[in-house]
């Protein structure tokens, strides 16, 4: 559909409510139905509409709860001790409570993306008009908004259409959040179903946000050859005035760049970004530079290089103002969602604000008009940079200073006990103060920059600054290339890979997404991405993960984006963009069902999810997942039947969704050809699992890419990867091969002998390859 602003004025009209005179009205949204696909069974589903589908999944993947606290403290009946089979004062049990917390986190995540989308769409409509056509991929994309079509049963054509989608998202989030109130839903499985609904809404809102900004700002439109842009601390020319933007909502940054463009300042000023605003800036202009993911905030601010910091929303350290103040860097807050306690200067004459910032009269200002931010940020940076020159030269602790500080350490270990990664700081400091910096330098790689160690140190040693000083060479050398976020996947790409994927001949789609809470540094992530690209998986990435993958150099000094294709094809590494671009990854899975397999998309969620679950070997990996958004993003994948692997910190997400490969009865599907129930093995074995090491993750990715629909050729290929990785990384053949071999033809030829032996030992019996579905009521759908 499309919408039009129409103003109508009628002298007299006959209507069913009578005769109306002198009627004037404006029709904000006039539906022009241009979509002939028949409406599916579940447009705009309520939170119980898809419950049966969720319960089907949850029956296979039962939550394994890992309570992160014995208590509940959500209301003032509490705290309540929920250990074992105790109940809270409201009657809730420990499983209920854990699922409720997951739901709460997912609601926060989905609200964050939805609210971001709302702020963005409202701004873009103000700026470009509600009629602005959505165009995420030019002629290459017909299915412009697969998730929206799937969930809402509508086909958005203009920015204005997106408002309706957001109305729906907001309504659903409000309902879902209500379920977390004391004395509402307490059934763990129903709560998990609501988590999945929240995830679906999250992907919907992400899609809205990204197609809105792609269309309005002309970001790369499904472009496999989006430009290579600079990433890394070392890519910044520190002699110029430097603007740092942090966050996720790009309009203020766009205005900064537009102001520079209009005033011919491009090239005179460095615009640098951290987190997704960084990514989205480089989609807007390849002149912008990315510093790194979330964990680079402290090290970059403390370097003193930025002359002004502009924050919008999400993933911004809440102490950014304190850190900036210490170095006299002014801060501009730009969103009502993150005011930092600053005085609202929106609408004040820019000159006045700039004077106040440059003179140091104020630490910062809240300016909620992006255009004004553009002027103020650029001009303040230009005025302030010369004054701050001196500060910039002394950006790191000198070796002598560092040594002196390290000597203050009493080896009390409070820092290590505060470090999320249990990093051996005291040992490193001891070695450092003995003149052996190597260990401290090594820590630079695995430190996530949270500065909890500093908070904990009774000696008030600026530990993180010491680490960064020890890692200074590494940091200064951080200069890489990242392929700017391409946005959606083209219909033609889908058409080309659809067959091979569904038949299993492209072994899988693996998406590395999410935050940078890495257990041992980001290289592990890059290594995994490379491994699977080499294995001719389609590797997708976004957000902090996309940055991290870029911050890696091979022997030739090249970053993965310089080596691998950006086309959605086997062996590629495809950066879709920022966090909200994740919707293009789920969208690609959905489009396979629709474009390649010609299933009806419209309002037809369960059938499509069933299709994706049984046929599309996609796996999400959120190696450094940390946030509530990560929860809702993951949940959106789960509901589509796409499993998600998280790093070791992921057990703190309160529960896993694990299959039981040893329960044969769990792994039957309906064969739509015969109507029979067929055992297909544990594919995919888990829906949500935290793994311990990179090696385990790689084996798990290979394993979870198997699907019931794999052809024998496809399955043999997937098994090859699985067995090969298992042997190489875990040192032995896996012991569960028999569960994945359905017929002899599934056996990889090169391993035939070994496997046949195993199958014998395990009493393996041949079965058939069905046309799989988990939807017994499938026939009820059109």
């Amino acid at each position, binding site marked *: 559909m499309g919408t039009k602003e129409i103003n109508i004025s009628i002298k007299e009209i006959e209507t069913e409510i009578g005769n109306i005179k002198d009627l004037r009205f404006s029709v904000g949204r006039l539906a022009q139905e241009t979509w002939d696909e028949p409406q599916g069974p579940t447009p705009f589903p309520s939170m119980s509409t898809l419950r049966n589908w969720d319960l089907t999944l949850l029956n296979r993947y039962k939550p394994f709860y890992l*309570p992160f606290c014995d208590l509940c403290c959500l209301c003032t009946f509490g705290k309540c*001790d929920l250990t074992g089979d105790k109940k809270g004062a409201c009657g809730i049990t420990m499983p209920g409570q854990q699922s409720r917390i997951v739901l709460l986190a997912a609601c926060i995540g989905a609200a964050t993306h939805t609210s971001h989308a709302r702020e963005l769409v409202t701004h873009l409509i103000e700026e470009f008009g509600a009629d602005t056509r959505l165009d995420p991929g030019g002629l290459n994309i017909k299915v412009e908004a697969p998730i929206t079509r799937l969930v809402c049963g509508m086909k958005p054509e203009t920015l204005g259409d997106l408002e309706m989608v957001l109305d729906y998202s907001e309504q659903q989030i409000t309902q879902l959040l209500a379920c977390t109130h004391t004395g509402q839903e307490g059934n763990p499985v129903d709560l998990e179903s609501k988590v999945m609904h929240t995830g679906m809404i999250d992907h919907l809102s992400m899609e809205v946000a990204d197609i809105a900004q792609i269309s309005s700002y002309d970001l790369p439109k499904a472009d496999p050859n989006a430009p290579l842009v600079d990433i890394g601390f070392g890519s910044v020319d520190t002699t110029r005035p430097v603007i740092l933007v942090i966050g996720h909502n790009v309009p203020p940054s766009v205005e900064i760049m537009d102001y520079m463009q209009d005033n011919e300042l491009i090239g005179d000023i460095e615009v640098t970004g951290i987190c997704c605003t960084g990514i989205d800036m480089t989609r807007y202009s390849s002149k912008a530079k990315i510093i790194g993911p979330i964990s680079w905030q402290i090290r970059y601010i403390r370097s003193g290089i930025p002359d002004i910091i502009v924050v919008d929303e999400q993933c911004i350290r809440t102490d950014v103002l304190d850190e900036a103040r210490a170095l006299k860097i002014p801060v501009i807050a730009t969103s009502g969602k993150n005011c930092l306690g600053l005085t609202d200067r929106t609408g004040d004459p820019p000159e006045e604000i700039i004077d106040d910032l440059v003179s140091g009269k104020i630490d910062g200002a809240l300016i909620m008009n992006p255009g004004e931010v553009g002027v103020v940020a650029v001009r303040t940076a230009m005025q302030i940079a010369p004054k701050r020159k001196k500060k910039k030269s002394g950006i790191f602790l000198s070796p002598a200073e560092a040594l002196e500080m390290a000597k203050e350490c009493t080896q009390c270990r409070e820092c290590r*006990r505060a470090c999320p990664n*249990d990093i051996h700081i005291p040992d490193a400091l001891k070695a450092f103060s003995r003149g052996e910096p190597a260990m401290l330098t090594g820590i630079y790689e695995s430190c996530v920059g949270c500065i909890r160690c500093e908070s904990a140190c009774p000696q008030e040693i600026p530990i993180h600054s010491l680490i960064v000083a020890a890692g200074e060479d590494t940091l200064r050398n951080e200069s890489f290339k990242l392929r700017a976020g391409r946005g959606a996947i083209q219909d033609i790409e889908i058409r080309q890979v659809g067959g091979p994927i569904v038949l299993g001949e492209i072994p899988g789609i693996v998406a590395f997404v999410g935050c940078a809470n890495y257990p041992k540094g980001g290289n592990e992530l890059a290594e995994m991405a490379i491994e699977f690209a080499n294995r001719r998986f389609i590797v997708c990435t976004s957000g902090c993960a996309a940055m991290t993958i870029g911050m890696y150099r091979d022997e030739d000094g090249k970053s993965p984006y310089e080596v691998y294709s950006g086309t959605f094809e086997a062996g590629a590494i495809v950066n879709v963009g920022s966090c909200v671009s994740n919707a293009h990854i789920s969208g690609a899975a959905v489009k396979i069902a629709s474009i390649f397999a010609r299933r009806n998309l419209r309002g037809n969620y369960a059938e499509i999810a069933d299709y994706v679950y049984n046929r599309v070997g996609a796996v999400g990996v959120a190696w450094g997942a940390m946030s509530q958004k990560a929860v809702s993003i993951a949940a959106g994948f789960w509901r589509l039947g796409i499993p998600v692997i998280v790093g*070791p910190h992921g057990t703190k997400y309160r529960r896993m969704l*694990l299959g039981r490969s040893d329960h044969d009865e769990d792994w039957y599907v309906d064969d739509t050809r015969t109507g029979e129930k067929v055992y297909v093995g544990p594919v995919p074995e888990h829906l949500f699992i935290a793994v*311990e090491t990179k*090696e*385990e993750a790689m084996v798990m990715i290979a394993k979870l890419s198997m699907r019931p629909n794999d052809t024998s050729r496809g399955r043999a290929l997937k098994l090859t990867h699985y067995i090969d990785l298992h042997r190489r990384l*875990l040192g032995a053949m896996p012991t569960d091969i028999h569960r994945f071999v359905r017929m002899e033809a599934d056996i990889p030829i090169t391993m035939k002998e070994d496997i046949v032996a195993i199958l014998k030992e395990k009493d393996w019996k041949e079965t058939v390859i069905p046309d799989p579905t988990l939807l017994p009521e499938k026939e009820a759908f059109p």
Partner: protein
Amino acid sequence: MSQEAWLTAEVAGPKKASLITKPEIADAMIRRAKRPIFVVGSIAAEIDLEEKKLIDYVIAMAKRYNIQVVATGNTNNEFLKRGFTPDAVMPAVDIGNRLTDPRWQGVDGKGPHDLAIFVGLPYQMGWTILSGLKNFAPNLKTISLDNVYQPNARWSFSNISIKNWIMNLEAILVNRED
């Protein structure tokens, strides 16, 4: 010795591990167990205990006490390198999940385990999985043999020094020799 979580903030709640104040406690628990199982994480092969690694103690104990071993993460590799074949290779959360199932017949299919000995997992992973077991595996006893306090185990060392730790591990092994 105190019941303080090793990572300061990882406070569990009212239900906390009892302290293994002397090796005899661990020894007695293992001795009493009918079907003990070792869950051995990736850090076991990283930790130096003077001339040995933690994993070497695990192997010695597993042999001497006849305890089945599950290798999580990529620990299997390290076991194999030492000529020891674990009874199962499994993600830590997978074995955790199965241990909460009273009908699960154990890694060898011969009946439910009654004691799980955790060692060498990343601290918070051990913490959370043991929390799952504390709450949902009422019939399973758990011990952590790491040198840090794991509040969610049934029994755990407090935060002890490497030296003290070695002493304890040696003592457990020696006890058994009697």
